[in-house]
């Protein structure tokens, strides 16, 4: 297994793992960014990581969904942004997604697109259920 870590001092931001290491390329506009720009960039990475993780309840860990929910892993960035904007404006009909798209700002939608586009596909495992133990107490 190969892992990619972006380090700033001893910090670690894991963006994708497994055999194909990639990084989230949130490129500073300036080629010689200030320390503040670098810090802001890092915070954007940290922000989008947990925001993207919030989507997992329906779309699976890192967008690797099971069953009847769109797979976001490896998604085309432009397609993602277009779709989310259409949910947001109401142009595209939805049962649920408009309620989420409307709560996100354009920067978050762009960063989510970037984040999901570089995730590595893997087969999510549907959990096997078990017989409830006689000893289970709650």
């Amino acid at each position, binding site marked *: *297994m*190969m*892992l*990619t*870590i*972006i*380090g*700033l*001092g*001893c*910090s*670690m931001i*894991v963006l994708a*793992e497994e055999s*194909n*290491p*990639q990084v989230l*390329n949130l*490129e*500073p506009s300036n*080629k010689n960014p200030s320390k503040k720009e*670098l810090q802001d*960039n*890092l*915070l954007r990475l*940290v*922000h989008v*990581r*947990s*925001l993207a*993780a919030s*989507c*997992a*309840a*329906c779309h*699976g860990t890192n967008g690797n*969904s*099971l*069953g*009847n*929910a769109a797979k976001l892993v490896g998604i085309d960035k432009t397609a993602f942004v277009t779709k989310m904007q259409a949910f947001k404006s109401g142009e595209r009909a939805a*049962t*649920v997604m408009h*309620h989420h798209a*409307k*709560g*996100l700002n354009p920067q978050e939608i762009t960063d989510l697109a970037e984040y999901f586009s570089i995730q590595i596909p893997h087969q*999510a*495992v*549907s*959990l*096997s*259920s*078990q*017989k*409830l*133990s006689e000893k*289970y*107490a*709650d």
Partner: protein
Amino acid sequence: MQINRRDFVKLTGVGLGIATASLPAFARATKLPIGRVVIIGGGYAGATAAKYLRMWSLGAIEVIVVEANSQFVSCPLSNLVLGGSKTINDLTFGYNLLKANHGIQWVQDKVTAIDVSAKKVSMLRGDLSYDRLIIAPGVDFIYDELPMLQSAEAQQKIPHAWKAGWQTVNLRHQLEAMPDGGVFVMNVPKAPYRCPPGPYERAAQVAYYLKNNKPRSKIIVLDANAEIISKKGLFTKVFNEMYAGLVDYRPSNALEHVDVATKTVKTEFDSVKADVLNIIPPQRAGKSAQMAKINNQIVSLSNVDKRWCEVDFISYESKLATDVHVIGDAVSAALPKSAHMATNQAKICANAIVQLMAGLAPDPAPVFANTCYSYVTDKSAMHVANVYRYDETKKIMVSAEGGGVSASPSEQEGAYAVAWAQNIWADSLT
């Protein structure tokens, strides 16, 4: 495309520095532990925090979960056991994949004491030291005003079934044994409690079962709140149309007394005798939130109304105990106490801890989403969904614009709700 170190530096053009480690995460952890996090509780919040701490620290944070039960039973979907379309076994899972996939250490034991000053958790079979502690205790029931329901014997007769498990099975058996023409009585405690739409979903599931099997029966819902507190328009319609004549919903009807022997409930306005009685007591943060010892004094971390735990919404660190975080239903917040919310809090907390343990600032303004489905038949469901954003002035999570509920319940949303369950189980437990 494989991006190597040189390409990355070229791509970003910055001197952030990058390290590619080809060692497995566990091997790295034994070489580079940056700290130990002990997590009390293996529910949605605790299990998710454990996974994401391991994942996002690349195994550099040692994680130990302490959980008394050997299995996980999902509260979401457990009302369908009452409706008859699920069994409790469909909602019961093990922790093996979670443990093995992420190198999480697991102790099946009961926590007996937490020494915040010494950074130590005591259990029946020993002690554990920690750098940071996460308490994910779920809820505990308050019996101060319902002392007659405190005993196991009373709960055998009148189950709460508000933590999925054997009480859910018991309530289903009682419903099956009830004669046609019987009266099912349940209450809704005053908010906040675990799962705001849950009691109304339960009424709908019981109605679904009765409509198809015992249509001469009746359900009386005694709500301590002035109105239906979640998905109000939708549930009102479901009660009045889909289950017309079956559901008798009575707002502002707080319990005053329960007679266990006769299954009779008294409220300020009514006295109701039930054939099957389901009492959901008021709730507070689970027991481990009341065990923290600071400088040899017990300090209850559930300081809000003596029920819920006050936390910092950037890291979920307790306002009362340093390096102790509280997540899930136990937290005092203007957020619904839902499974999705518990996993969100777990992820924000894990993200912050990874940053803090690396000596860096956490995300100053977290954002997350909540989607909650309620089933009104075996197949048809409806949602409430919202994005929540950290408000830097108020220092709390507030609901963003654009959230809302389904237009109406549908089988399409029922299918989405199946996907929600499959994915949140896999996200929390694999």
